[in-house]
């Protein structure tokens, strides 16, 4: 049976792992390689590295760490951040990343998704969506350039429409970052994920809000996502992956045992 995936996310800036609260005020957590290796050994099913500065700086930063990670770990990993051309994507994949995740550049040029899928195949093209719940309008809105708070801006897209658009263009997997929940550890946005699951025939990964083991259990049981991504609870040692997986297994959720 296909296992639900536990995915630690490492936000990378200037070659270090950082973490902010609601996408802002980033603090340094540590070096990339030891953290990546520790998570792989602890039983993480996959890792995501977000180079959070790249898109908002309109440049591709030094990505030599990608190859160091690919040599080191034996589980799949995704690289996100500022990948806006075939050449960028080719470089990252050639260094050994299994998937690339596109966010702001896809909003700027949706055709980029088709181009990347044609060139590298659907299986390695992930689309990240930063979705903000606007309580005033009762709507989910897509944001871009969330790596830099001074440049973060709302787009014209509602989340469900953008989801349908990227799937029609061939996206192989969706990571939905629920911005209201990010870093506050109050639980995943079950309502939103449940609603979007119905519109998502490709794997759907929940992101933003994990604070306890129960939150993971809820998101798998209630929103039927394929994977759950989290950062601070792992970086700060609040949840051990082994204990998390044992609890989920006891709850009857399909998990790859550690």
């Amino acid at each position, binding site marked *: *049976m*296909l*296992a*639900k*995936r536990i995915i630690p996310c490492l936000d990378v800036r200037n070659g270090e792992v950082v973490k902010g609260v609601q996408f802002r005020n980033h603090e340094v957590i540590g070096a990339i390689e030891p953290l990546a290796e520790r998570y*792989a050994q602890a039983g993480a*099913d*996959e890792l995501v590295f977000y180079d959070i500065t790249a898109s908002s700086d309109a440049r591709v930063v030094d990505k030599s760490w990608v*190859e160091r990670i*690919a*040599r080191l770990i*034996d*589980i*799949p990993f995704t690289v996100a951040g500022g990948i806006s051309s075939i050449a960028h994507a080719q470089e990252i*994949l*050639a*260094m*050994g990343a*299994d998937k690339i995740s596109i966010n702001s550049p896809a909003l700027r040029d949706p055709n980029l998704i088709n181009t990347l899928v044609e060139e*590298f*195949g*659907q*299986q*390695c093209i992930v689309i990240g969506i930063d979705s903000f719940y606007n309580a005033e309008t009762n709507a989910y809105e897509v944001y871009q350039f969330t790596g830099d708070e001074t440049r973060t801006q709302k787009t014209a897209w509602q989340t469900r429409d953008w989801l349908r658009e990227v799937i029609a263009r061939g996206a*192989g*997997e969706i990571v939905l970052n629920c911005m209201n929940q990010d870093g506050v550890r109050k639980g995943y946005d079950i309502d939103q994920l449940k609603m979007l699951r119905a519109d*998502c*025939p*490709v*794997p*759907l990964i929940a992101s933003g809000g994990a604070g306890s083991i129960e939150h993971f259990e809820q998101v798998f049981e209630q929103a039927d996502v*394929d*994977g759950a991504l989290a950062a601070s609870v792992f970086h700060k040692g609040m949840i051990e992956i082994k204990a998390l997986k044992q609890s989920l297994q006891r709850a009857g959720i399909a998990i*790859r*045992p550690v």
Partner: protein
Amino acid sequence: MTQQNLVIVDTACANLSSVRFAFERLGVIPEVTADAARIAAADRVILPGVGTAQAAMRNLQRLELVETLQNLQQPVLGICLGMQLLTDWSAEGEVNCLGVIPAKTVRLQAGELPLPHMGWNTVTAIGDNPLLRNMDAEAWFYFVHSFAVAKDDSTIAQCDYGQEFAAMIRHKNYFGAQFHPERSGNAGAQLLKNFLELTDADTRA
């Protein structure tokens, strides 16, 4: 491990580096080449692949490697799309493949489940599978694919995702794995080690 000449066919595809690194972690330095003579002279050959069958076959034709790959006598392991290329035919682009394992590649019928089939799933050996030696009867491997080889006589391991399909296939010296051993933790490393340790007896069956 005895030093041997391991060649990874340079299909210029995306997972080539991870396959190379996985062998390097086992202490074996593979040669990555698209040179027909080098491939034919290797002790063991790996055919990696991601992307579409049509594009990959076109690429092998352009590199003039089709005949070379069809006539190898040493152990060969096709990984993911590389496995599908070993079959007779793929529904992905309706293209003739290398035809060294009598099997067909079709679209995975997963019903309501998301596609691609992406993530860790269990693999169960069918009959004698020398590549799954020294590991749990139900081992976990990492998959990413939307097309799959239908179960038939060449199937030596199966997986279930909406339907049962061939997780591994084999004919004579040609072996294929639908999943990615290079990204499948300890089980994947053990499989690659088993491939390096295949004996003549293993490849005659």
